[in-house]
């Protein structure tokens, strides 16, 4: 599952930005925040216009021909050897961990494996490739963090988010009990098994509320949509944000406006 040894590249001059379909449609602010954080680190961000979706929803549902067709449409987007950064552990995990298997025994196997080797989860990239230093310009606040299961277990980046938040002097990071437990999103799982998913997210929200924090951040839009959506519908006193939006807002100095 997790790579035994992760070899980070030297900080590049350019990266490809793979935005993911959820960010594209529902959380473009998080995407913009990620792009601006990278640019502030002096990296030129290339956004391939023809990107759509990594194919994960169909892949995990078992529709591999359908997933492969969509994934194949992404393989041509990254012709140069620049790193590909993804603001999601889940889509990053799909491309890094599952593309090689998905394209095994096809004409695209070499290309898929090559691309998989260049995929980086964005917060991991900021910490371990850019060695980012953040200056907190925000008001004192307390936050909790939910690291997605794929960020934690597939991409092995559970320590990265707390490291970034730890750089923000006015941010008090609190940890909920059972922090490593799934929020219940799981893609189509949430609609296929609504009661189970509902039971999982209700407990996740309770543990977040019990920390005393009134906001939480997360690495993945699926979890965000699930946890924040539950809190909103059930009037629980906690709101959520993608960690990239949170980081950009607190360090940008213009109150979080995006260019």
């Amino acid at each position, binding site marked *: *599952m997790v790579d035994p040894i992760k070899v980070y590249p030297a900080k590049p001059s350019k990266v490809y930005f793979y935005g993911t379909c959820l960010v594209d449609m529902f959380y473009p602010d998080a995407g913009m925040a990620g792009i601006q954080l990278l640019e502030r680190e002096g990296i030129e961000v290339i956004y391939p216009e023809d990107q759509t979706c990594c*194919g994960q929803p169909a892949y995990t*549902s078992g529709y591999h021909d359908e997933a492969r067709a969509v994934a194949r449409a992404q393989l041509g987007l990254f012709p140069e050897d620049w790193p590909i950064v993804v603001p999601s552990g889940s889509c990053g995990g799909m491309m890094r961990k599952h593309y090689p298997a998905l394209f095994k025994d096809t004409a695209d196997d070499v290309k898929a494996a090559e691309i998989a080797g260049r995929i980086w989860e964005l917060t991991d990239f900021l910490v371990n490739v850019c060695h980012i230093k953040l200056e907190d310009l925000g008001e004192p606040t307390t936050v909790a963090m939910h690291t997605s299961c794929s960020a934690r277990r597939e991409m092995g980046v559970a320590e990265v988010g707390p490291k970034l938040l730890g750089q923000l002097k006015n941010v008090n990071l609190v940890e909920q009990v059972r922090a490593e*437990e799934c929020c219940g999103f*799981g893609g189509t*799982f949430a*609609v296929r*098994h*609504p*009661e189970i998913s509902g039971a999982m997210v209700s407990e996740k929200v309770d543990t977040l509320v019990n920390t005393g924090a009134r906001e939480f951040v997360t690495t993945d839009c699926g979890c965000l949509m699930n946890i924040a959506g539950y809190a909103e519908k059930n009037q629980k006193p906690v709101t959520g944000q993608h960690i990239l939006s949170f980081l950009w807002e607190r360090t940008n100095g213009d109150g979080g406006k995006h260019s």
Partner: protein
Amino acid sequence: MSETTHHSAHHIDVKEFHPRARAAIHNPQIRQNFRKAMDGLMTKRKSAFEGWDLETLRDLGANIRMRALANLPDLLEQLEQKLTENGVTVHWAADGDEACEIVRDICLARDAKSVIKGKSMVSEEMELNHYLEDQGIEALESDLGEYIVQLAEETPSHIIMPAIHKNTTEISQLLHDKTGTDLSNDVEYLTANARLQLREKFRNADVGISGVNFAVAETGTLCLVENEGNGRMTTTVPPCHIAVTGIEKVVPKLEDVTALLALLTRSATGQHITTYFNMISGPRKADELDGPEEVHLVLVDNGRSTIYQDDELLDTLRCIRCGACMNHCPVYTRVGGHAYGTTYPGPIGKILMPHMVGLDEGRHLPTASSLCGACGEVCPVKIPIPDLLVRLRQEAVDGDKLHPAKVRGHGAKRGTVEAMIWKGWSWMHARPGLYRLGTALGARFRKLQPGKLGGWTQYRTAPKLAAKTLHERMKERSQ
């Protein structure tokens, strides 16, 4: 009715997963019992591995099991030969029914009327108790948890802790109703009473039936891991001992059990070792004063040799039945073991049972997972459970162009509405221009977005489409 032709009338309909899961989720007592137990087990496991190089140990566990599977037919023959030399009779059963018949025949030959049982999940697979009862042979469970479950006329809800779904008060009431003990929340009192009742049964049983944790080929040794001593009683006191096990349980070397034992007990219950590690290599010898006169081993296939054919599915057979995957499973914790309606619940059940009941029957099993990966992370023999769940989902939709499906009952989802939806989804997402047009239109008309989205909005608000997609914003930015 199920399609299987099993002897038992006690078959639970695996397809009815949802109603059972829903009932468990809305039962606060069940929820609390499982949450409490699983929290405790996770904490204990963690502390039991402190100071260990756990990754390397798990690698060793995986390699030991893979080495065993790589030589499985040879090892089974070696095991048979060694056991035979040691005076143990070895039997082979193609499925649960045949295994039941073998046990029955051994009992009949001895004119046995009562059987005492140690814990054995394979015997649950066989539904042996019901079978023997139908044959007029009393079969009594002696593991305290199994005993409780049997008194309640239920099945185990966990492979290691069968009665974990019940709290003390419920068990006290059950024991009171069925065995006449006083109502009491004093666990020592309840345990002492069970001891009394079962001691008589051990003494008078004609046959003892147990499972096997590891079967060692080089010495012909059957290893049993347990805390209570009922396993030792079962395999020592009655004049005849029958061990039943899956064909995958064999390992080549005695040495192998040291690492597997270290992994098993720590992963299962967070113990550095169980009270008893019982190694049986033969019946009572002529000059020995106790132990069974006869020992039998029943090697049960029941679908395992089919799983064995496929390089990926093969990993399922590495399992050493520790239950760590269920202890760490957020779904199992919410729905409990009975919701699955299968012998093995939780993640291991989801990847094993479809082979036994067929994917058509068990189609909900592989989907009932958020693929969070907690099971794979704790598995002591590194079974890639999430990958196998995805593989079974793929089998359920009849494989793909590269991988024709092969699991029993595959393709149940072929031609469904769901399959059509994914075709459409794929068609659009493989065409970037169309995707951009569609998503941009979605953003433009987001006010028309439906507020209700099936199961999703039962618990959450609908996700809100942004006014402009990231594609549009990046396009504007570049102009």
